[in-house]
């Protein structure tokens, strides 16, 4: 039916008659051209003496675009003025140019797109380009193809223009390229993989699922992304819907292609003909300029259609001279091929100009050599200067005899003195006047960061070396070289080493860009070695380069990793200090603090030891130094260690030997060196370290300070070690003496003289108390073993009776004093009084029970008295601790106690000696009962409530794990406690989740620490997450690491909120 088709064709034509719109994003959203772009936007930089914006307009005009929106962000008034003054705004051209000023908060192209959406200016399919495009591609053809496709497939929302070039092409950026995976027939883009040059990408990952629908696809790594997109109207709205889309390629294209919901497709237009390139960095500035001079952009060439409206004469050898006899060339000067010289420029005798672009009204003095240099308007190059591969801004004055090495960028209005010697890749800009700086500060806050950079640069200008660089009488400041301090926060494309690939004149040959692959998956070991080899290789290459070439003197490439690690550590250190400060100040529970620490550790990917160091350090530093009062000092220590000591073992792993070592090394550095012995003793008291651990530590060479150079430090370490020696001597003495007599009297005489031992004794008492709580709580039906136990312990039972009177107040006071937390202070204040009383007798008394508690044989003595005395003993103990204890419960408790000890003893002892998890979990009860204790005073009063939960508590406690937690020697010191205590424990179950020992060591138990399900869920998350961290750590994927770090922070935030909620709930339940 010919008539119909022709009519439809007509319709097509009318469709295409509608106004073709284009959007130019005239901001670069990065700083690659600094300092050339301080003072004007990138789109106004001249390329071959016409601004980039003009080139872009020209490219669009060629495509028949009728309406152009220019989105500008920085220096909008300059852009506006430039548009107004250009030939494009002449009404005769029929081009409608609207400049849109977007806010300073527009940081990404995505933000600009959202702005476009909200303005509602787009009515049909439009062309989206960046403001740095040089192209002669027939974009109208692309638009036609796009519209045709849209007719059959409404989901084809975008067509990207790409140009095949080969992998290594000068206009294809090494630093930022992409792999396009296209359907061979339809050139639908199926996958987009962004590639950064450094660190070199190892693998391109192609999702297998695309193969299901497209059995034959093409993987193209040879395409230049021209930055020209033909978009349909939906595109801005998609940006609006997905507020996190920043970059058009990496976020938008990737997001659309990977989305399961959008069902949109993006196509590529592979331009076989024509030229298109973006001036995205200084290197492409160079290559695009050369391409223009070599006429690859025809018809956009300087002698015809020059976008700036200049007219040039094209001479053989691609030389362009401004027409009109305004260029003055000396008879002896040499102008090589591929040169462009603007109007009004004077070139003096014997000047040699090769492959360079010289602006208008410049003066090149005699004997100047310019190779691959871009000189903007009104510049003055002094006699005898040599400049290579550099960009010289407008109105720059280079003094006589100066040398500018490759890769330099000289900002506008800079004056370089005589004999200035700019090294490679220097960037200089004009020093600003004071007032000017302030003004610009006020003017736009957005430039703040730049200003700070400038100020930083200004700050270090005084030294003479700088003067040597820029010459006498210069107004220039030299910008810092090398990676920025906040490099971590930058997008990986913008990082220093990657940017080096985009610099003019930088061969970057010292950067290992080719990832040399691995062995196939089947031989993993080989692969690993290969990879590590490679890294070493790469590193050595960089380091050798640093040592030899001047290019990279600014690049401590070798240090990148180590610096990075160091930065991570210091950041971690700071975070830990903060979080501990918070924990101490707000009185978090130990477990909450531990969770926070774990998250931090995983986020920062630091070894466990670092965490331990941080925790130990902060605990030690928080101990108040009490001068001249040993007892008070000891109290302070035990208070701090008792409250926060358990944290040391909750950071994700238990290694008491390391703990001691860390403590030693910290003390050796700290002012609290004299406290080492006492702290260690306190740790021993609280079961954080065991006698064996102290011995193990003591035997280690590190403990003796071997291999340490720093004399004073080593000495201090040695001193700490000697303290340890003393302690071990004591242990030995105790052992031997007990073996001999088994009487405490002999020990009593020795011990008061030694502080640590006294502290040990204190610990023993405290433990005895705790263990009694633990043990009593367990009810077991097996009574068969009771008798044997009882009979064994019959004799020492008397000892318990004797010991009892000497220490009645003690047990109550120790836990209270050590474990009280600030949040419980109000309740604890009563106890504090008793504590003070108790402490007085505690010191002389301490020696006595210590004897009994340190050896298993003796300590077993008071543990299992026959039912009747047992009933008596707890009464004594509990009455001091909680006077309101109903005495009726004593009977019950005594029964339970007698039953429990039989069942407890065995698992406890075996667990202690064999199973590490049990040892690890032995830290648990230290806090749990303490909570119970502190709440006891109030808890005992509402006994009704308690009795309800009593059964529950008892049944919980019967499980073997809590018993196993009680370490053997002390475990046996059993004095019964009424179940009332247990009930308060269960109460604390409800309020402080992590402090509760959970009976089953299921999968939720991490690092020997049982968790509530909810918390366990987080933990599982974090563990999983931790694996990830490790993985990424080993492959040193910078990005992965960054992602993980941010994710870690988010998670931490999440956990903190949950913890706070918990606290709130707890308070409300009270």
């Amino acid at each position, binding site marked *: 039916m010919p008539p119909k088709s022709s009519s439809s064709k007509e319709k097509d034509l009318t469709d295409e008659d509608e106004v073709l719109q284009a959007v130019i994003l005239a901001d670069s959203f990065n700083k690659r051209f600094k300092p050339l772009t301080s003072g004007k936007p990138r789109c106004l930089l001249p390329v071959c003496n016409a601004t980039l914006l003009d080139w872009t307009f020209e490219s669009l005009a060629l495509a028949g675009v009728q309406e152009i929106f220019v989105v500008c962000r920085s220096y909008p008034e300059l852009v506006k003025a430039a548009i107004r003054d250009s030939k494009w705004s002449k009404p005769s051209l029929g081009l409608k140019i609207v400049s849109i000023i977007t806010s300073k908060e527009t940081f990404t192209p995505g933000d600009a797109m959202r702005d476009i959406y909200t303005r509602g200016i787009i009515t049909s399919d439009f062309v989206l380009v960046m403001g740095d495009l040089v192209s002669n591609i027939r974009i109208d053809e692309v638009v036609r193809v796009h519209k045709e496709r849209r007719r059959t497939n409404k989901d084809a929302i975008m067509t990207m223009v790409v140009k095949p070039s*080969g*992998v290594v092409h000068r206009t294809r950026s090494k630093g930022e390229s992409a792999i396009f995976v296209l359907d061979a027939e339809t050139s639908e883009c199926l996958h987009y993989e962004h590639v950064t040059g450094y660190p070199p990408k190892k693998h391109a990952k192609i*999702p297998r699922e695309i193969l299901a629908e497209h059995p034959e696809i093409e993987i193209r790594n040879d395409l230049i992304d021209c930055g020209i997109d033909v978009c349909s109207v939906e595109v801005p709205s998609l940006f609006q819907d997905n507020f996190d889309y920043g970059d058009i390629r990496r976020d938008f294209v990737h997001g659309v292609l990977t989305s399961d919901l959008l069902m949109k497709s993006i196509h590529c237009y592979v331009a076989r003909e024509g030229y298109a390139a973006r001036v995205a960095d200084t290197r492409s500035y160079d*290559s695009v300029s050369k391409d223009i001079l070599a006429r690859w952009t025809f018809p956009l060439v300087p002698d015809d259609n020059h976008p700036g409206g200049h007219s040039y004469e094209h001479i053989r050898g691609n030389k362009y001279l401004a027409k009109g006899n305004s260029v003055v060339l000396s008879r002896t000067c040499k102008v090589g091929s591929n040169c462009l010289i603007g109007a009004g420029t004077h070139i003096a005798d014997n000047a040699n100009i090769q492959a360079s672009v010289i602006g208008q009204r410049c003066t090149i003095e005699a004997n100047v050599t310019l190779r691959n240099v871009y000189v903007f308007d009104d510049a003055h190059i002094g006699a005898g200067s040599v400049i290579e591969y550099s960009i010289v801004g407008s109105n720059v004055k280079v003094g006589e005899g100066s040398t500018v090495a490759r890769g330099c960028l000289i900002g506008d209005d800079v004056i370089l003195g005589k004999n200035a010697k700019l090294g490679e890749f220097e960037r200089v800009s004009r020093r600003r006047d004071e007032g000017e700086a302030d003004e610009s500060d006020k003017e736009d806050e957005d430039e703040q960061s730049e200003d700070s950079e400038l100020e930083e640069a200004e700050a270090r200008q005084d030294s003479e070396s700088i003067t040597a660089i820029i010459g006498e009488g210069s107004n220039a400041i030299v910008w810092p070289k090398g990676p920025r301090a906040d490099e971590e926060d930058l997008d990986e494309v913008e990082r220093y080493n990657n940017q080096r690939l985009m610099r003019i004149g930088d061969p970057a040959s010292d950067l290992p860009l080719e990832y*040399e*692959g691995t062995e196939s998956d089947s031989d993993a070991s080989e692969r690993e070695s290969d990879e590590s080899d490679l890294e070493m290789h790469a590193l050595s290459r960089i380091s050798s380069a640093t040592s030899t070439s001047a290019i990279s003197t600014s690049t401590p490439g070798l240090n990148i990793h180590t610096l990075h690690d160091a930065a991570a550590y210091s950041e971690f250190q700071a975070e830990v200090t903060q979080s501990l400060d918070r924990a101490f100040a707000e009185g978090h529970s130990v477990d909450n603090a531990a969770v926070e620490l774990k998250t931090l550790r995983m986020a920062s990917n630091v070894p466990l030891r670092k965490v331990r160091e941080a925790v130990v350090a902060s605990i030690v530093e928080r101990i108040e130094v009490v001068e001249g009062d040993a007892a008070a000092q000891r109290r302070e220590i035990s208070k701090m260690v008792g409250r926060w000591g358990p944290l040391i073992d909750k950071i994700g792993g238990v290694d008491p030997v390391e703990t001691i070592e860390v403590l030693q090394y910290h003390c050796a550095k700290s002012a609290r060196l004299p406290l080492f012995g006492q702290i260690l003793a306190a740790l021993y008291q609280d079961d954080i370290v065991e006698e064996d651990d102290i011995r193990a530590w003591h035997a280690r060479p590190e403990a003796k300070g071997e291999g340490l150079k720093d004399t004073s430090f080593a000495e201090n370490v040695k001193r700490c070690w000697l303290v340890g020696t003393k302690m071990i001597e004591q242990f030995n003495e105790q052992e031997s003496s007990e073996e001999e007599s088994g009487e405490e009297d002999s020990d009593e005489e020795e011990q008061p003289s030694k502080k640590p031992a006294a502290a040990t004794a204190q610990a023993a008492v405290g433990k005895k108390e705790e263990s009694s709580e633990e043990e009593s709580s367990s009810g077991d039906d097996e009574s068969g073993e009771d008798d044997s136990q009882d009979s064994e312990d019959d004799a020492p039972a008397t000892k318990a009776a004797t010991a009892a009177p000497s220490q009645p107040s003690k047990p109550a006071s120790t836990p209270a004093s050590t474990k009280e937390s600030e949040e419980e202070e109000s309740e604890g204040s009563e106890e504090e009084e008793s504590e003070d009383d108790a402490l007085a007798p505690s010191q002389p008394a301490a020696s006595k029970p210590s004897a009994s508690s340190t050896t298993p044989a003796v300590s077993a003595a008071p543990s299992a008295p026959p039912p009747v005395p047992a009933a008596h003993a707890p009464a004594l103990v509990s009455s001091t601790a909680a006077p309101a204890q109903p005495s009726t419960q004593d009977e019950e408790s005594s029964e339970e106690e007698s039953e429990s000890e039989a069942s407890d003893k065995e698992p406890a002892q075996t667990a202690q000696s064999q199973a590490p998890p049990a040892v690890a979990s032995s830290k648990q009860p230290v806090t749990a009962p303490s909570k119970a204790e502190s709440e006891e005073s109030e808890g005992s009063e509402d006994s009704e409530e308690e009795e309800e939960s009593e059964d529950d508590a008892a049944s919980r406690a019967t499980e073997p794990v809590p018993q196993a937690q009680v370490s053997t020697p002390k475990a046996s010191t059993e004095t019964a406690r009424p179940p009332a205590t247990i009930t308060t424990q269960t109460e604390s179950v409800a309020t402080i989740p992590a402090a509760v020992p959970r009976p089953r060591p299921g999968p939720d138990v991490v690092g020997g620490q049982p968790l509530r399900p909810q918390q366990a869920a987080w933990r599982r998350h974090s563990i999983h997450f931790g694996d990830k961290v490790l993985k990424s750590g080993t492959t040193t994927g910078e990005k992965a690491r960054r992602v993980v770090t941010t994710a870690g922070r988010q998670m931490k935030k999440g956990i903190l909120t949950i913890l706070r909620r918990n606290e709130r709930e707890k308070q409300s339940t009270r």
Partner: protein
Amino acid sequence: MDFEETPSKITTKEFLAVVLAGFGNELAPLTSNNGDEPCPKALLPIVNKPMLDYPLAWLEASGIRDVLLICPAPHRASVLHYINSDSSASSFPSLRIDLQAFDESENLTVGTCQLLRHFAHRIDQDFIIVPCDFIPPPSLPLSRVLNKFRTEATYDGAIATTLFFEQPKPDKTSTPEEWRSGPASTSVVWDEKSGTLLHVDTPDEIDDDPEEMALNMSLLRRYPRSKLSANLQDAHVYVCRRTVLDVLKEKPRFDSIREEFIPWLCTPQYNSRKRSKYGHILNPLHNLPSQRLALEHCTLHTGLPSAYEPQSALSSPMDEVAPTETSSLRVGVVVHRASAGYTARANTLQTYLELNRHFLSQTTYALPIDSESRSLIDPKAQITSDSMVGHTTKVGERTNIKKSVIGKHCVIGN
């Protein structure tokens, strides 16, 4: 002057064909033991010809003389009997078949790599690995693969050439049978222009990452425009340089040629680390310059993709031109498109059936001419032309045979 003797001697030296005949576990129950008698896969008939006939004929047609036939020990007797039988001796007069057996059972099959390592001492020259179950189409002569290998090995130091065929698009009209399980095709990355195999997606890799396929960036840098095809199948036909065996010895852990060794063999061509490690073992020919010029004008040679396509006439000192390689260590690939003729490996029941059907549709059957066979077929029996009836088969009265293959010495009806 004896012209006939000399050329044959030269050709014998060039290639040794290694024909691998396995148990055919995929073809059970056709290949399961028939009582005590084993049922060798190699001798399963496809339109009344043993499967082995097809690859042997293919080899012979390309001028190969020496064949190393490797079969399981239990099958040795029957395969040997077949080789020495009249039928094969008459159809392949020029082949010298060296039958070797290996000890293995159906349950404990020996990997193909191990076989190759075991018989490496019998292979002194470049060799072709051919499976007994590859049924090549007439449109694909082996010489096409061999010629590619010959030119590339000489010209730029290729180490192997492989053959892949496109899987025919699933026929919608055919009813899916219960036991139908289509052969799993592998995803391969290859360069179309130069015919280079770059990457084979192995089952191990799929296990490692079922979501994404990881391609080495150095691959993509060297071959920036490569194809990823999911519809190609490996014919298991590999032409390799002798030195490949030496590398195989270095890699004792490899088990399967197809799934492990060939994918690995693709890597040295772009992985410079492996290139340096194994390049000297692979030791490709170095007599290149003399032949290079001649081969550049050879129509068979398509040329390597140049990594640097000079778009600009300007010479820029900043761009380094990729150093010219002395030897590419390439693995060539010949891709046989489905449109060029049906081909398959008869290693699953489905393809076995398909192949039989295919050959039936290709030939028109006429009743046997010799009177002895003819007399056994009842004149009243109806046999359509898309069927095939073997010798001395008795077909009874009013038997109706449509679209079927009947073997020899059968009795149908009555």
